[in-house]
């Protein structure tokens, strides 16, 4: 019996380690590819082997691709990086604020029309995003906002999913008695929200900020249809252009992909606890 469970345990670790290796291999391939010279690229799939320290051919490695991304004026990668940071930050902060306020109103106030708004929020959850592409594009065109950051950001600031998540989080984390006590002490409604409600739902705040930031960072179809000027393109659109134009310059393409995913990875590793908790809270408790 003992040996059998030991065998099962060893098999578990073996399978998990194998799966982890398969998961990490594309990342390793990407990192290595981004730093290999053109000649070394096809010589080895990961690091170029040679007679240098650690058995690596250090002359086969280069910062040339990374440098070219930011210095070649036809690539404008620095501008795209800034565009992505701007677009994802503004979108995520405003969408989170809008969702938290809406969720708070539905969770902690009794008013005429609450049932109707709640039904709208739940109904909107089942509308698939592609359905809205054509009519939203026509609307943005009519508003004169094509090829502007406003046309890209504003339509994404009313996330029904976020309002639903914050409604649940505030119901669980913000006691009505506390709100009433603060009001008795003369706390205004706006101060009440920013100084009591928001701090109490901090975990959801962090999770939703991260979810919306990553969503905006990785969004391709939105900027692809709304924007036309290359100087406004975020990384997702810029990398698609690099692939179209320099598709065979593998080193450059991998360096561009690496630069595009590192910020998101760093953010996630910093905030992963809150992120995973927020991700599953709606599914498992609900």
């Amino acid at each position, binding site marked *: 019996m003992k040996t059998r469970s030991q065998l099962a345990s060893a098999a578990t670790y073996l399978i998990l380690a194998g799966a982890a290796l398969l*998961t990490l291999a594309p990342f390793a391939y990407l990192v290595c590819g981004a730093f290999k010279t053109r000649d070394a690229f096809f010589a080895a799939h990961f690091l170029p082997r040679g007679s240098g320290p650690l058995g690596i051919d250090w002359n086969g490695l280069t910062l040339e691709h990374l440098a070219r991304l930011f210095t070649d004026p036809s690539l404008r990668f620095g501008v795209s990086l800034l565009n992505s940071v701007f677009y994802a930050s503004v979108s995520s902060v405003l969408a989170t604020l809008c969702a938290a306020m809406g969720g708070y*109103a539905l969770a902690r106030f009794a008013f005429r029309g609450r049932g109707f708004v709640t039904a709208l929020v739940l109904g909107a959850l089942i509308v*698939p995003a*592609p359905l809205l592409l*054509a009519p939203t594009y026509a609307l943005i065109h009519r508003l004169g906002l094509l090829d502007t950051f406003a046309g890209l950001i504003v*339509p994404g600031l*009313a996330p029904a999913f976020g309002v639903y998540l914050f409604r649940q989080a505030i119901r669980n984390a913000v006691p009505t008695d506390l709100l009433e006590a603060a009001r008795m002490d003369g706390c205004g409604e706006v101060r009440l929200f920013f100084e009591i409600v928001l701090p109490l739902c901090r975990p959801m705040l962090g999770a939703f900020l991260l979810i919306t930031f990553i969503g905006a960072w990785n969004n391709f179809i939105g900027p692809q249809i709304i924007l036309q000027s290359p100087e406004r393109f975020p990384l997702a659109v810029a990398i698609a252009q690099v692939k179209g134009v320099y598709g065979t310059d593998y080193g450059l393409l*991998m360096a561009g992909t690496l630069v595009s995913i590192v910020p998101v*990875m760093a953010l996630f590793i910093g905030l992963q606890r809150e992120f995973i908790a927020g991700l*599953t809270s709606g599914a498992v408790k609900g």
Partner: protein
Amino acid sequence: MSRARIYPLWAPWLFLAPFVVLFGVFMAYPLISSIGLSLQQTYGPGTSVSVGLKNYADLIRDPLFWIAVRNTALYTAGSLFVQLPIALGLALLLNRPRLRGRAWFRLIFFSPSLVGLVFVATLFGLILHEREGLLNAALARVWPAFPREFPWLQRFVMPALILASLWMYAGFNMIYFLAALQTVDQTLVEAARVDGAGPWHVFRHVTWPAIAPVSGFVALLSVIGSMQLFELPYILLGGPGPESRGLTIVMYLYQNGFETGDLGYAAAIGWVLALFLIGLALVQRALQREALS
């Protein structure tokens, strides 16, 4: 328990206002206007003529649309029958008691889902390259009989897409299964073991019934997401690919609306997809209700 209201009447509306206004303009209005749009033929966003139900009638007879439906259905089947079982398997392994390094494994498996589809597509464009790619080189080493220069992106587009999305989403779905497994009553599992039940029996009669609701939810989300596949084949193949093997419903919507400029036809495709997904969600909910009662 009724209490006197001690906040001003306008307070809830102050907080709700940004959401309600934006929701009205950028969700409710486009949703309603898309019905009218789907009854028009447009040439870019400026000019349009009313054509009644012609877009829907054309769509039913459009061979490319049916190719897109078939491809999308194949990919969705791959998500359901290849990816989800692997995700569940990983979750079951990670849920074993006294496992070391659980947090690290979870982090590793989850991390690919943070990479945007466009970036996954550029990366897998190289990994799946028939001559220089990592995958064919690795397969040649572990399985010498595997054909050299296997044409993933020319002839085996669907397996290639399923493989890329397996890498990307298996860990994401694993998180949901893992969260569900952690709610399974361990005393029941122990009791079944003491009664002499093998691992399969424990899974079939104790674990599975407990995680079935979450599994249904994960399967629904997976189908909804898979049916909206666009960026992965669009970037990986630079379009629909050889013989339209990578054409999906949303790619066809995109091509018609934003390459040809017929927003009306695009809206009609959007509605067909939306009605199918909404119907599916309703069926799933009804099944869940029935299972509970």
